[in-house]
């Protein structure tokens, strides 16, 4: 029920703050989405969409952290391996 799906903004179709809307592509399936809660999101940005509303703009720099942590752990174990 609380699921949200990531999608890419293709165009902004209404820039009025309360009714801000855009066309968003979900892996090729395009839907009109309300963008009033993500006022800074622009064309080509990715947003999380829940029941027709974008609830956040995906932070690209944070999106890799789950993998960066694994890399960091690899480096640590290499250092530990080399020093033992």
């Amino acid at each position, binding site marked *: *029920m609380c699921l*949200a799906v990531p999608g890419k903004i293709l165009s902004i179709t209404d820039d009025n703050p*309360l009714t801000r809307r855009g066309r968003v592509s979900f892996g090729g399936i395009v839907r009109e989405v309300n963008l009033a809660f993500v*006022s800074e999101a622009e064309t080509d940005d990715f947003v999380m969409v*829940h029941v*027709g509303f974008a*609830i956040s703009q*995906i*932070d690209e720099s944070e999106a890799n952290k*789950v993998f960066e942590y694994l890399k960091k752990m690899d480096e640590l174990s290499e250092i530990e391996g080399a020093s033992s």
Partner: protein
Amino acid sequence: MKYIDEYRDAESAKRYSDLIHSITTSPWAIMEVCGGQTHAIVKYGIDELLPKGVTLLHGPGCPVCVTPVELIDKALEIASRPGVIFCSFGDMLRVPGTKGDLFSVKAKGADIRIVYSPLDTLKIARENPSKEVVFFAVGFETTAPATAMTVNQASKMDIKNFSILVSHVLVPPALEAILSSHNNNVKGFLAAGHVCTIMGYTEYEPIVEKYHVPIVVTGFEPLDILQGIYMCVKQLEEARAEVENQYTRSVIRVGNQAAQDIIREVFEIIPRKWRGIGEISASGLGLRNEYASFDAERQFGITEYSCEESSECISGLVLKGVKKPHECEAFGGRCTPEHPLGATMVSSEGACAAYYRYRNTSLKK
């Protein structure tokens, strides 16, 4: 799809599973709050990748499941009235009240429509000025801004043939109800990533301090959940209790201010009854006086209902993490997704329904 496929990578999942094994020295019971997370955990077998002592308990975060029987009965009564178009998210149609479900009312000729977004109901209201259009507003903090925005737009556009049957509930009071319960088993929480996308996680900071339990804001993909479990176990092993954020690509500490503003504009905090749990104070949202004309209960003069839940159903204990679905005598026999006895079997995000769908059929009676 970008931001989905990479978080289902099997090799990285194995790495996180190994990391969890490497730091675990004691048994820990961790509750994932959200039904979407429960569904992903059971579907991908994430609980089976964990050390034996690390148990996942499935929390109350399925709004379809916890909507009280009384509200389902109110929905059935309103939807049955002539001249009404009753709109709902699809998963509410199968939820049993005392006298059937919305599907059975639809089969008798009621105009019940499944909508993708609450905004769709405004379009239906404008296209059907001689009908009363009612939206069944169910959901946690994730969904509340969408409902609030819809009511706000209806008010601005002066749409008079539109109202909502409100069943919005809030997560933090439910966590406190679980933690203060005498039979609480939960040692740490994975908080619901999309609820926190809206609300941020400042509300959890006093809970962590009061009950000394770690809370990790966690996403919904397998790697998110595994990393969330890893962060939670790490805190438990190090005797720390903090709010940490795994889901940083979507969640910031203060949440989405514009979404919170529209919730506060339209709704106020009220007590709500949770199916399987009972009434929890300050755990739900109701329309403010300024928006009372959009309240379907008032509009249709619906009186208070009270009804008993099945005494055989243990969903209250499942929702609090005290029992697992297959520990129920009725599971898979007298209680199935087609004929659910209670809360946790009614929606695909309920723990019982997820176990029924994805787990070994030998569990079924």
